[in-house]
């Protein structure tokens, strides 16, 4: 098959297009996603292609948007809701935690909704347009969470999320939108939810990462190989709930040294979960304590000087890995 280069944003776009084309029950809605194409122009052209009936704008009402999606989903539709920024979901978490997340357990009725959550900082979005909220969603029973890092996975994860009969939070990283590119062909298969992917292999240590941090980790690994000759495994989780404990443990066994990286806040963050899970089930595999490298417990600052320090980067990861290996 011929290959072509697409961006992460195109990956999501193509995933949406694929779903809208092949699944007549799918609809996409959110603020400004129609003719305007969304705040990031990610949905540009989809309304023109599939019609106002399939791709449409809503008023500004996150709770009603999610409630509407739940109602549709329980009647056999496959709604995809775009939050303009992930940050605004906190006005309506009850619709996800309580209404969508508990429904199958309580009634046996499936709620196949997908909530797209443009996430993450790095370009001056400030405290209300940069949040990483995966921890909230991963803590919710009945909810699944995906977080692709590469364009092909982003595309495949849309298909998987829409196909899954459960509420899926689709985390998408805004800094990856245009900066991350990949060669892909036109075959689109759903991403297997719950399966990580090892992006690089080495025996000195493993970095467990997701979203934009996968790319920082890969840069750090390349740097360290060059500078110190260290060989680093990089695990791209791709799916956060469920997460792929088998792959994590295998990498732990192979390296004995684990660094978990997240651009979310530290306390009670997703990185803690991975650390705790490794401790519980793979303690004997460890040559050094599992370390977390995360954002500090600070609102996401606007100034470039502050945000650069705030957000873990390849340099920070390299330092943490060196410390870990030389522990």
């Amino acid at each position: 098959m011929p290959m072509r280069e697409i961006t992460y944003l195109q990956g999501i776009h193509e995933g949406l297009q694929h779903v809208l084309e092949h699944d007549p029950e799918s609809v996409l809605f959110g603020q400004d996603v129609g003719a305007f194409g969304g705040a990031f122009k990610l949905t540009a052209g989809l309304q023109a292609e599939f019609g106002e009936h399939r791709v449409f704008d809503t008023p500004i009402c996150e709770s009603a948007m999610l409630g509407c999606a739940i109602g549709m989903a329980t009647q056999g539709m496959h709604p995809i809701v775009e939050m303009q920024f992930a940050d605004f979901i906190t006005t309506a978490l009850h619709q996800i935690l309580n209404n969508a997340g508990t429904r199958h357990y309580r009634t046996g009725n499936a709620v196949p909704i997908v909530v797209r959550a443009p996430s993450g900082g790095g370009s001056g979005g400030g405290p209300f347009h940069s949040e990483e909220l995966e921890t909230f969603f991963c803590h919710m029973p009945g909810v699944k969470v995906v977080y692709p890092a590469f364009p092909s996975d982003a595309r495949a994860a849309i298909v998987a999320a829409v196909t899954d009969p459960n509420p899926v939070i689709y985390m998408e990283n805004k800094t990856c939108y245009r900066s991350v590119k990949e060669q892909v062909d036109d075959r689109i298969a759903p991403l297997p939810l719950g399966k990580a992917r090892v992006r690089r292999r080495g025996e000195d240590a493993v970095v467990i990462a997701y979203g934009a941090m996968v790319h920082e980790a890969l840069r750090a690994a390349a740097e360290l190989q060059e500078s110190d000759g260290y060989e680093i495994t990089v695990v791209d989780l791709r799916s956060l709930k469920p997460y792929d404990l088998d792959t994590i443990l295998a990498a732990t066994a192979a390296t004995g040294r684990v660094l978990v990286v997240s651009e979310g806040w530290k306390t009670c963050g997703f990185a803690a979960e991975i650390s705790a899970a490794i401790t519980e089930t793979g303690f004997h595999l460890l040559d050094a304590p599992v370390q977390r490298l995360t954002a500090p417990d600070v609102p996401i600052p606007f100034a470039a000087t502050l945000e650069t320090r705030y957000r873990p980067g390849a340099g920070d990861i390299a330092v943490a890995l060196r410390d870990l290996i030389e522990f």
Partner: protein
Amino acid sequence: MPGMWTLETVQKVAAVDSAVWVDVLRLMVLARKVDEQVIRLCRQGQIRGSSFTGIGQEAISVAVAVAGEPDDLFAPCIRNVALHLGRGETPLGIMRQVLARPDGPTGGRDGNIHHGRLENGVYAMISHLGAMISVVAGGVMAKRRHGKDAVGVAFVGDGASSTGDFHEAMNFAAVFKVPVLVIIENNHYAYSTPNSRQFACRHLVDRAVGYGIEGLSADGNNAAEMYVTVRGIMDDIRTNPRPVLLEAETMRMRGHGEHDDFKYVPEELLLLYHRRDPIKLALRAMKAAKLMDDSAFSAMEAEIEAEISQAAKQALSETEPSPDTLTQGVYADA
């Protein structure tokens, strides 16, 4: 029947097939007696926590249940056992629900009033007030896309009208012209909080204009008025899709739950509504119209009581779900 009606209402009531009134009365009695059975079980300590009933408010649910068509969708709240019963739930199902039995509508996983069977078009509520209006709107949008001429009915209390969710859903439904009837059952209190501390508008139906939709009021204790009003709206929005707001004035004749002595409600108000009991009013009117007599009514009551006590007995003879099922079914299988 009470004298405040317009000629039009009287004519509408008269035009309804008399069998409907028997259905309406029967369903109100059934709901009342189911609720009373639940209260007995609660007093006997058979039910975990408190119990929440709709005693005094039956006419509203019954009107909707009887007016609905098979494809319609409903989002009941905590005062709407009559809606459940009218849309296919059985007394046995209710008993199993309140007793947390495995064969009940939520298999014992959810609390006493948070049930609903989607196969009957009834959504299981969540407690978060106001959250279900947008759900039923979305459900109706889906049904209509599937070619059904479904309409939706959501029930909320006066207190729930203060939530952001109420507002978002009303506006959303108005913009998308979704055929949902949102009924505010204004029973004067939200738990202990009276209307005067809940809102400052004269009538909650005054909110309709701010959504660009019609708003109507009806006497929530008058089953005939409720039925003709609800039926009229549902028929109308079925062919001319749009949301409508209906405020039904009524009274909760028990505490918020059975744990609540509702001393905060003035005696006179309860007395007034005791005289305006929806079953009493309907029965009197039907007797006057020769649609019912004492012996037929007694027979109806007896039959219902037998069914309910049998249901309670049956449910009591069953046991709660096995703890081994705890973690099953959190997710739907792919």
